């Protein structure tokens, strides 16, 4: 199975926001979407944090070589 990329998560969260804006959405649907959106954003944030840590490691390694 293909792993979801950061871009996939961003796209999904935008779609969720759009659906939440639908004036005909029921409260139950909107709560489900909100929770799904929150989980998607959190996992995207985690990806950013991981990428940041990787960059820091690389920078440290390069700094050490200078």
């Amino acid at each position, binding site marked *: 199975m293909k792993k979801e990329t950061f871009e996939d998560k961003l796209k999904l969260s935008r779609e969720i926001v759009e659906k*939440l*804006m*639908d*004036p005909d*959405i029921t*409260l*139950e649907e*909107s*709560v489900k979407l*909100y*929770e799904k959106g*929150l989980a998607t954003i959190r996992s995207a944030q985690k990806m950013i944090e991981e990428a940041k840590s990787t960059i820091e490691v690389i920078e440290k390694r390069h700094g050490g070589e200078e």
Partner: protein
Amino acid sequence: MKSLVVGALQLPTLGMNATRLEFYLKNAKARGARLLLFGEYVLNHFFKELEKMPVSMVGEQSEMHIRLLKKFASDYDMVFVAPVVRLKSGSLIKSIVKITGGSVRYYDQKLLMPYSHWNEKSFFSNSSSSALEPMIFTVDGIKVAVMAGYELHFDKMWESIGSKKVDLVLLPTASTFSSHNRWRDLIRCRAFLHGCYILRANRVGEYYDDHVKWRFYGDSMLINPEGEVEMMLEDRESMLIESVERSVVSEHRRAWRFEREIAEFEAPGEK
């Protein structure tokens, strides 16, 4: 003499989408409105629905609407007064927000409904430490006070209306079931006794609770200091725009002298 064009928006819950507000704002602006009042549970879902929502979702819904209203207040040069549920340190607070292009001010409701079928007192985390007084401010020389609908029942909340010479009281409500006539009588009575206009914005819409239908019936209205209905809406989504005149308030207070009689009784000999 001073006057102010005011409006009451009679709407159901806006949910996450408030774009249809612009339709009303354009109309209100064209009719000269400077101040718009929203009903209770319009920016947020109804109280019973909030119980089923994550608190962070309620908080984000409120923040989103406040951001949007700030932009509209600046674009349309209007003052908005709207009940809003705030998320503060993880707890929900039932408040009323006053928004202008440059400022946001909150009034946290002091007295909340404690009844078994509608227990806001136990659900919200409002503090009970502040004085029992409405939020008071001035718009274009007209002194305006705002209190939550339930707070109308308490005499203490009305003491500053006369002493601070308030011209207009804003009353956002979420009245339901068969309370039409009682609310009309109460509002008319308060307006006459305290010599002020009262603008009430009541929400519309329905809520189903264990097969019981809660129908919010509108009936938004402007009552003058004589206790007469200046304008009243029916039970559908709509907007009321009317003018309030300082001279009408002054004339009522001069003629009926309620405040002066009490002052003279309490401090005889002083003028």
